């Protein structure tokens, strides 16, 4: 205990280390605070819009209640849908700034509504959010480098290295120092995260997973820093090598990978389906109405034996051709969806190689703010849209007038309950990478020689130990 507190004092006596730790604590607190603020803002917006929507629906009811015309109700009534931020969303805002989390839909063709965007400022979205994910993935490695790049070389440069190495059990000393720095870095990240979790009532599992991701990713950075520091280079060379590695891992390789994934999995089907759906919908005015109805009944036989179309316009025909339009592009919708999912899947695969990508994917999965969460919201909208259609069809196909009290029993959107996130593989990838690199880095500290590098004599033993470590982890 005494030793530990001594080491602790040493760390905090160094201006660089104490400043770095304090700064990291500040930055992660700031990020968590901003995240909580944004989540609160989004929740507030959802509530405010629900009220606004309620008034809007009332206005529709006022206008058409007397007519009892279900078609007018179907055409003019918008329904609100929303995707509330999860209790872990404050960690990683993900796509919630560029994709809608509130969307109004009505009983017309879904495919012409569901891809509508949200208003946001693309120039502000471009650099990305300042959230905990950013602090963890981009900034925390820099702090690990700052604290560890001169762990060994600093002692050599100040002339204490020989003395330290002559102490029996010097390996333990280095590892204690490294572990202490790791612990402090982790604390600087984890404390604000925990406070945030308390403030937003994050589920225990989610916060545990987030902490695991943090610990694993940090372990990777610390392990890599130790690996480099134990090579006997100068502090400047260590810093250069580590910054080079950081640049590759967080800036260069992910963008190269993104380029590869975007090019190999095109998703232009989105535009295709939009164009095709519009042709079918508007083409309906040119084809005999009975033909459209037959197409419709094929998928919805429950309305087949209802009253035939009258001479003039009837809303049920109008809504039917909208639905036929949606159904005519079902194949394209699936293809589009498959493309998006493939992009997401390959990103997750990449997490096995790049801890930055792995940690990002895992953290956003836990926060439910990634592409998968977006698609889940769209699925929920589609489900709700089916309910809306069924509701109006019940009146239109039976020619039952829609009264005010019927209108108040219209379907109400219920957001998907915070889905139980399956995160196994992504988390495992980050943990494995972090664990292996950390253990290798720690193991190398055992065989430092007077030059501050792992001695030649121990070279073969070192390799064996490294392998043993990998064995143990895998």
């Amino acid at each position, binding site marked *: 205990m005494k030793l530990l507190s001594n080491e602790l004092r040493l760390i905090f006596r160094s201006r660089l280390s104490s400043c770095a730790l304090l700064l990291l604590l500040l930055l992660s607190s700031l990020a968590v605070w901003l995240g909580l603020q944004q989540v609160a803002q989004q929740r507030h917006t959802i509530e405010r819009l629900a009220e606004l929507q309620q008034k809007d629906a009332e206005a529709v009811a006022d206008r058409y209640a007397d007519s009892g015309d279900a078609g007018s109700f179907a055409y003019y009534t918008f329904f609100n849908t929303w995707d509330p931020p999860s209790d872990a969303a404050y960690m990683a805002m993900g796509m919630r700034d560029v994709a809608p989390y509130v969307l109004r839909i009505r009983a017309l063709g879904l495919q*012409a509504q569901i891809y509508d965007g949200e208003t946001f400022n693309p120039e502000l979205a471009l650099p990305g959010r300042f959230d905990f994910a950013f602090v963890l993935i981009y900034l925390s490695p820099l702090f690990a480098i700052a604290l560890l790049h001169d762990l060994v070389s600093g002692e050599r440069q100040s002339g204490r290295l020989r003395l330290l190495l002559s102490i029996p059990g010097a390996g333990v000393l280095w590892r204690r120092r490294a572990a202490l720095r790791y612990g402090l870095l982790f604390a600087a990240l984890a404390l604000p995260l925990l406070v945030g979790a308390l403030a937003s009532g994050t589920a225990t599992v989610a916060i545990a997973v987030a902490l695991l991701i943090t610990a694993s990713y940090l372990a990777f950075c610390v392990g890599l820093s130790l690996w480099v520091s134990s090579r006997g280079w100068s502090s400047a060379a260590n810093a250069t090598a580590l910054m080079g590695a950081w640049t590759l891992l967080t800036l260069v390789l992910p963008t190269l990978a993104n380029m590869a994934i975007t090019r190999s999995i095109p998703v232009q089907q989105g*535009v295709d389906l939009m164009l095709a759906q519009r042709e079918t919908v508007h083409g309906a005015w040119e084809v005999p109405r009975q033909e459209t109805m037959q197409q419709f009944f094929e998928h919805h036989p429950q309305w087949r034996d209802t009253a035939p179309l009258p001479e003039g316009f009837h809303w049920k025909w109008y809504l039917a051709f909208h639905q036929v339009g949606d159904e005519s592009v079902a194949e394209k919708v699936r293809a589009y969806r498959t493309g998006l999912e493939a992009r997401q899947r390959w990103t997750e695969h990449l997490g096995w190689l790049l801890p930055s990508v792995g940690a990002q994917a895992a953290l956003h999965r836990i926060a439910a703010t990634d592409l998968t969460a977006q698609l889940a919201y769209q699925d929920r909208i589609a489900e709700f849209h089916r309910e809306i259609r069924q509701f109006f069809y019940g009146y239109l196909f039976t020619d039952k007038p829609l009264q005010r009290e019927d209108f108040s029993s219209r379907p109400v959107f219920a957001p998907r309950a915070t889905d139980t996130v399956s995160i196994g593989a992504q988390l495992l990838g980050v943990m494995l990478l972090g664990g292996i690199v950390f253990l290798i880095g720690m193991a190398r500290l055992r065989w430092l020689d007077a030059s501050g590098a792992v001695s030649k004599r121990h070279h073969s033993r070192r390799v064996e130990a490294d392998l043993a470590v990998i064995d143990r982890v895998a």
Partner: protein
Amino acid sequence: MTVVTRIAREEWRLLLRDRVAISGLLLLVLLTLVAALNAYEHQRSANAERAHYQAQANHAFEAQPDRHPHRVVHYGHFVFRPVNPLAAFDPGIDAYTGNTLFLEGHRQNTANFGDVRQSSLLLRFGLLSPAFVLQVLAPLLLIFVGHASVARERESGTLRVLLAQGIAGRQIVAGKLLALSGFAGLAVLPALFALGWLGVSGHAPWEQALLLAVAYVGWLLLWALVVVVVSSQFQRGRDALLALLVAWAVLVILLPRWLPDLVNTSVPLPTRFESAINAEREYKELGDAHNPDDPYFSAFRAQVLEKYGVTRIEDLPVNYKGLVGMEGERASSALFNRYAEALFELQRQQNALVDHFSWLSPTLALRRLSMTAAGTDLENFQRFLRQGEDYRYQLIQGLNQLQVDELVYADDTNPKKENRISHTHWQAFPEFEFRPAPPGNVLDRALPAGLVLLCWLMAFAMLIRVAGTRLGRMAR
């Protein structure tokens, strides 16, 4: 050979023997080339794809059968946003904006199918482009290569020797700066070639390509200055390195991300949801064309009747229903445009706030300059939306005019009658063509950011003089 060039040559000799410098430079050049080729190829294929879709949409519009013009108003049209040629250098917000805009009557739609919603979060790591390489990575390389340039001389004691030989501190610093700038020149060279090719071959306006070239040369020069100034302030190279890395992390990574986020929360944008509801409510308040007693449309009717000198709408020589459609479209478009412009204004305010911070981080100034010159900034996107809206308005009003002229009121109000006009009318509408901002306008808008960058350069040019003088004095 002057003293300065001799010092620079010595520094060069060291640089060329430095493994980090050489491999870093090679990596950077390689990345620039890969990025340039990829961005160019992406820009080309995206444009080919969008041109293809535009042609398809044009064809679909023109090949419509005989229809009632109001059907066509709802059938609408699609326009696709082409990628500006210089996006091959700096894609800017291209991936964050939709490229497909559906135009129809009585509505303003969003541009959809932007890459940002069609990619995994991997996209948020950034796009590999020559601009990204030069903005973010090149300064880092200059730091690695140059952090010890002056500090090394001091650390090893050669600084004293140099000064004792009668070389002025300023000359030493100038020599180091020359060497590092030369190195930076090598790093920026492939990008300059790419820009030169884009400008000379006529792919892009040469003025804008030139502006980009100047901006990035200035940017790297600024970093060379920063590196040499900082290096001359520290006793040890490693301290200079740490200080520079912190500066880089704060100026290039942290602030350009944090400040926009701050602005985003301090100037919130209304959601599309509420703007739509509010606009619709206002629209309803304007009047109801179907209500014979509606004050707004009664006044309109009276005005029309007076203009044609008749007392009943049935006696009008034109189709009154079409006129009402035109009036409704005019009023609703004015309303929607008001909302759209209010939003644009808010976005502009946000960007202006961020721009103020370029006094804090020159990266923000460079980014503004770069995106503006490349035509991949918000202004350009808003330009597309505006032109799309203009086109939509002309199209819809053209169709309404057809309803006014080609259909008879009595027929048009008879639900039993099929009212269709010849499909040849559809072919008479002009096709949409996006007109990017003229280079003069681009240069004007880039000017403020350019000035900020110039101020940064001048400030550090001044600092380096001071640093040189101090260096000389200190040795005495």
